[in-house]
């Protein structure tokens, strides 16, 4: 109930921001801008979905940016050096990213490292690995060779629903990028996983009350490991979409993305103290960040001022959430009072 009302509040905030820019920013409310928003931030949304899992488990994953680079570079190498077919490359990259995430989980579960520091260590290590395996350094000339495999570039496809429905004569609908649909599928899948399976319920318990989870016979180690693996998987998926969009991978891909993902997740109502949140919020959070960035650019606001405003909005978003939380608690106390005095 309360989680849902928080999500509505966030949605309201998003819609308000959106409408503001529609009114204030020139060419914000255009079909092509919607395309830009969808294709430019779907992968951020996927990263934010992934990041929700470690955060729900009271952890954090700082290494997602490096995993993005790693998965991207694996695609690059397999395609341009080993000339493997795309249908084979994509699953390999996803598996590698998932394993990289699982290794984070292993460090947290088995070596009992604090998630922040464990993933900080792997952030460095994975990035180093990317440099090591970089086809751009190993084979001269590859840095200017785009990836042309249809399996991969095909991911950067747009769907024109307007003409499909035959209504394009009187409205122009944005063409929807495939990445957006992939994001929706991921969202639906993980929403289902969290909300409707034992694993998901267990994950909330492990994050919210680890002792209760243990006493209920839940294998907390396995759940935690799986949570970090999901984060890795999402990073791998984001990497594939990025590679399709860029037709290449670079060694620096994904730098700083962990911060966007964390910010989107927390704005989306995933509590850093674990056990509270959904994957819907982070997706809204990601597109909220996107709306703000694009909107401010279209408003012609200097990039430096943009940084200041984004920071302020981030504080406002978590502060707003905090206020709602306080109000909710106060209401609860009041309800309780009525009950006891009744």
């Amino acid at each position: 109930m309360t989680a849902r009302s928080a999500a509505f509040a966030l949605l309201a905030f998003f819609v308000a921001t959106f409408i503001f820019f529609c009114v204030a920013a020139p060419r914000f409310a255009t079909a092509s801008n919607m395309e830009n928003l969808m294709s430019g931030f779907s992968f951020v949304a996927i990263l934010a979905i992934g990041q929700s899992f470690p955060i729900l488990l009271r952890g954090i994953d700082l290494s997602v940016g490096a995993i993005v680079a790693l998965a991207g570079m694996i695609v690059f190498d397999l395609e341009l050096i080993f000339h493997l077919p795309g249908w084979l490359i994509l699953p390999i990259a996803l598996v590698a990213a998932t394993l990289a995430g699982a290794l984070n989980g292993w460090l947290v579960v088995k070596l009992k490292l604090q998630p922040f520091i464990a993933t900080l260590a792997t952030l460095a290590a994975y990035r180093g690995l990317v440099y090591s395996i970089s086809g751009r350094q190993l084979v001269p000339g590859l840095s200017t060779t785009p990836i042309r495999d249809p399996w991969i570039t095909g991911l950067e496809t747009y769907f024109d629903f307007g003409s499909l429905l035959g209504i394009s004569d009187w409205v122009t609908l944005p063409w929807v990028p495939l990445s957006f649909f992939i994001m929706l599928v991921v969202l639906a899948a993980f929403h289902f996983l969290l909300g409707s399976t034992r694993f998901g319920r267990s994950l909330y318990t492990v994050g919210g009350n680890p002792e209760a989870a243990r006493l209920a016979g839940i294998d907390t180690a396995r759940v935690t490991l799986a949570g970090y693996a999901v984060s890795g998987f999402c990073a791998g998926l984001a990497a594939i979409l990025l590679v399709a969009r860029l037709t290449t991978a670079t060694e620096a891909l994904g730098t700083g993305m962990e911060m966007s993902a964390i910010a989107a997740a927390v704005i989306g109502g995933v509590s850093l103290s674990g056990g509270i949140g959904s994957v819907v919020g982070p997706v809204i959070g990601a597109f909220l960040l996107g709306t703000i960035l694009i909107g401010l650019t279209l408003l012609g606001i200097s990039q430096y001022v943009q940084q200041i405003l984004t920071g302020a909005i981030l504080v406002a978003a978590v502060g707003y959430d905090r206020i709602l939380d306080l109000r909710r608690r106060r209401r609860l106390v009041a309800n309780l009072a009525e009950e006891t005095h009744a």
Partner: protein
Amino acid sequence: MIASVPALGRRLAPHALPLAMLVIIIAFAVSEPAFLKPDNLIGIVRQVAITGIMAVGMTFVIMTGGIDLSVGPVLALSGVIALFSLDAGVPLPLSIVAGLSVGLVVGLLNGFIVARLELPPIIVTLAMLSMVRGSALLIGGPDLHPIRGHEAYAAIGSGDFLGLPISVHLFAAVTVLMVLVQKLTPLGLLVAAIGENERAARLSGHRTRLTKMALYAICGVGAAIAGIVQSSQVHTASAVYGEFGTELDVIASVVLGGTSLMGGNGSIARTILGVMFLGIINNGMNILNVPIDIQLIAKGVIIAVSLALSEWRA
């Protein structure tokens, strides 16, 4: 014999970091004797001075279960402000105060939002990172601003005193000051108390929020000192200094020193150990000309392993 291995491990666990350091130092020294040259050893301290000053400042914040991601841009902005003040004809001490006040203001703001509004520190300081960087770029632009004709200012980073770089003296002074604060003043005790149990500290009559604000302010001032040292060391001030990753190095040093991100235990002296540990790894790998990819992988593995060792109990 076999039975005693875990027991030995338990006994050695608290000393995992110094032991790992020793092993690494020996490995470096064997593969490159120049590593142990006094010049290089002093070099290491000079190299870590900036990160070290920030790590010393951040230790208290982390001990209370907080974190400060905004130190990078604070470092940049304090250098820019100090230089602009100098160029505007403000006397040196006042210019330095102007630079340091950047850290103070940002730190107080961080502390206020974290302690008073009780928002998560990681998000608050992430937002502050963005805001301070934006402000620094607004004020200083993307350009490098050379520091010319301010000999005294330049000496802070580049001068020598008693055969040691002044930046090393400064690092030592900040460290000693903070060690004394931790060991000898009520503040040190209070930081530990808040980290251990904030509720209990408040119920013991302490002004925990005010204290936390002060700690973030200390952290900010530490970053500002680092900014002044860096700008004077490189004879330039720029809004782009303290690039992304600076804060993570600082946090890694503090955590390697045994301070838990959950708060509680921690010591300035051990933070120095963490700082030196990372400094030695970087220096040794530079001196051995290890390629960047292997450097990063090794760094990640070494951090994970040495922390895992110190967690190794029972």
